[in-house]
């Protein structure tokens, strides 16, 4: 009597590598064991985490010029949402999603701001989280990267320098555009120029009036409102008065947008480090208006 046994061919283990794994952000094919996408350098963990879901995660971008406070805002936002138990509760997915929150909270707790975000895309922090919007049963999956501001500007002025930004923004469902009100109030116009450039770039990505950027929600957030009380009282009025180009552009080109004012540090000061280095430090952590822009955005995306 023959006893047949089943022996798996070693080559069968390689079968999975015959098929490429498309990156969730840019769609480029990658090997199953790749850590980063070879085109956009987004973590392939996002693709693995999203692959088994019926509904693909939505993508939200937090954009702004260099130094506007994107990392601090996002880190504080994640920390606040993760501690909530009732409305708009957040659960992170994957270890990579906690890194930005951890770095931000650790830095603030030690009386400092987190380090500057590098411009290399493989060093950006990516967050994959699930939002439970309160009473609604439907849980929303979100992917939010923390991109360097100068990379955005470089991509706008020299397209295709960073291969992942354009496909990512094309697939984004909404954005939070952060603006530094202290520079605006000081008379610097680069915030206005950057915002108009960015919004023009977004609009040109998809002009469809029903599904394109003219219809996608945009939260315009004045990020350092604690140092600029004017914008806290009436952000809309502040934008109209100090950012006329951006204000007019939004009014004429976009259907769903809203102005917000947010702050993380209650007050800031300068500290002298070794030599003549001066470093800006937070005197206390006093978040205000941090959750509202995100809450509005989620409600717009998931009515």
């Amino acid at each position, binding site marked *: 009597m023959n006893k047949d046994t089943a022996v798996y061919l070693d080559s069968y283990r390689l079968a999975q*590598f*015959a098929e490429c794994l498309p990156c969730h952000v840019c769609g480029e094919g990658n090997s199953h064991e790749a850590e980063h996408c070879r085109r956009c350098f987004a973590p392939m963990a996002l693709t693995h985490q999203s692959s088994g879901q019926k509904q693909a995660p939505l993508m939200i971008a937090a954009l702004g*010029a*260099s130094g506007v406070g994107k990392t601090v805002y996002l880190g504080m936002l994640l920390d606040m949402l993760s501690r909530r138990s009732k409305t708009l509760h957040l659960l992170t997915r994957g270890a990579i999603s906690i890194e930005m929150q951890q770095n931000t909270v650790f830095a603030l707790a030690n009386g400092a701001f987190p380090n500057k975000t590098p411009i290399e895309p493989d060093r950006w922090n990516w967050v994959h989280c699930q939002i439970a919007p309160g009473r609604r049963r439907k849980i929303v999956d979100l992917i939010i990267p923390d991109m360097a501001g100068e990379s955005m500007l470089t991509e706008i002025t020299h397209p295709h320098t960073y291969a992942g930004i354009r496909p990512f923004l094309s697939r984004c469902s909404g954005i939070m555009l952060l603006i530094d009100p202290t520079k605006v109030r000081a008379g610097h116009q680069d915030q206005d120029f950057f915002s108009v450039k960015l919004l023009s770039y977004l609009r040109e990505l998809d002009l469809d009036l029903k599904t394109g950027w003219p219809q996608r929600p945009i939260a315009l957030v004045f990020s350092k409102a604690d140092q600029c009380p004017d914008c806290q009282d009436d952000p809309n009025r502040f934008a109209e008065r100090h950012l006329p180009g951006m204000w007019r552009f939004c009014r004429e080109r976009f259907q769903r947008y809203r102005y917000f004012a947010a702050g993380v540090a209650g007050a800031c000061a300068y500290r002298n480090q070794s030599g003549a280095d001066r470093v800006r430090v937070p005197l206390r952590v006093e978040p205000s208006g941090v959750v509202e822009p995100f809450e509005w955005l989620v409600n717009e995306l998931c009515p």
Partner: protein
Amino acid sequence: MLGEARPLDGVPVSFLYLLAEFGPVFVEQAIFTSARTSRGSGYHLVAASPGLTDADARDLTRYGPSHDSLWESGAEALSVNFHRLSSGAYCVSQTTPEGPEYSNRGGARIYTQSLIVQPAAFARFANNPFAVLRTALALGVMQVHSEPPAHLEPVELFGHAAVIEDGLLSSCAAGPLRSKLGALIDAVIEGSSVALAVGGDGVQLLAAMIQALPVECRPEVTFSTGLRFSPTRSFQVCCLSANSLENRRLCRTYGMQLLEMDSADAALIQDGWGWYVTTLLEEGRLHEIIPLLQKPRPGLSLALLHELAASVAGGAEEPLWVSNNGSSGADRSQDLNHLEGQRIACLERTDAPHHSVGGVASTVPSCSPPAQTAEDPCDVLSGRFPLAVDQLQRLEDLIFESLAGRPHATDNLHDGWRRLAAVIDRRSIVEVRELYLRHTLCCWRELNDSDPQLSQARSEWALAILETLLAE
């Protein structure tokens, strides 16, 4: 050359020769750092000389290191970097920490000064990036600006560099550096990406490796001596820190070959260039290397070095190194860019040899012709022209190599077609030509299917092949 002077427009030829050999060369320069300028704020190209093209500016931005990009901390940290640009020029850059970040966010400002050197000027310095940088530093052109200037002017570099500089190779003749040098040379020739974790000897080893290569092959090796590894910066050789765990993770993730001082390396390729150089160093025959490297070989590339070593070590006559017909240095650099892109594309392909299964080495697949098919001209014609089988096979190989992007293949193709036509009767030339045209299209489609990234360049190469086949 310095014999009887013959006036040329009133200027002696000997003087013109001296001027061409030792006169100044102008190189473009650029500064990439964090600053607030009219172009923007943060890390960007803050200043550049007028001759920098947009494509090169984009390349410099892509390669530009930003915050915390040096793996060494402290004010003395330094990285010397070398890579090619889209225009065909070469970039030799120096990255250092210079002062605080302008936005008061802590950490050092990373400051990169880049020199954009055209191939002809690069050849004046024996294609040695370290020689270019040393000359620039000696002339004081590498200045750190606390406030970046609005405009930069091209810089003048004088002099030239010897093919071999005294002391560097001999310093690697003894001790463990010799074996590391051989292993590094072999890895570079094989096309592998190399992580060099040898501590403070990394720069010395890298500089010695550059000098151990023939001048024509040196521009093919891109490197960085002090930057953290990033896949956005595709350097072939990266000097890394002593963090063994992190280095192994990088090598595992990105398919790099790790060379560590304390670990044993794979055996050198027998009769290869690395073995030949280390043998000469071991036997104290350094003086034999100098004339070997000084001999001009316009068509030589890294991939042919093992062949050169085998012929020289065996005492045989060297093969004829045919250069690209009428190619300038920029064409050569463009070809290198194509090969580099092919190297990276091959390593990143989803069906590339997998690193963690079966110990398959992550090397560039050789540009070998496809298996013979029933439609191959050699199969069809060998029966009718038995004396021309070698020419038929050779022509098929040249067509495939041309479409795969090997730089000298297109030039040899004209010669190969001429040799074949000489042994074929004129009435059969039309049929033979048609068969080879079909074969060219078949190879073109097959290569595009397997590697679509080079399809545009491959179309140009295919047109060159068709032009050769259709010429009378």
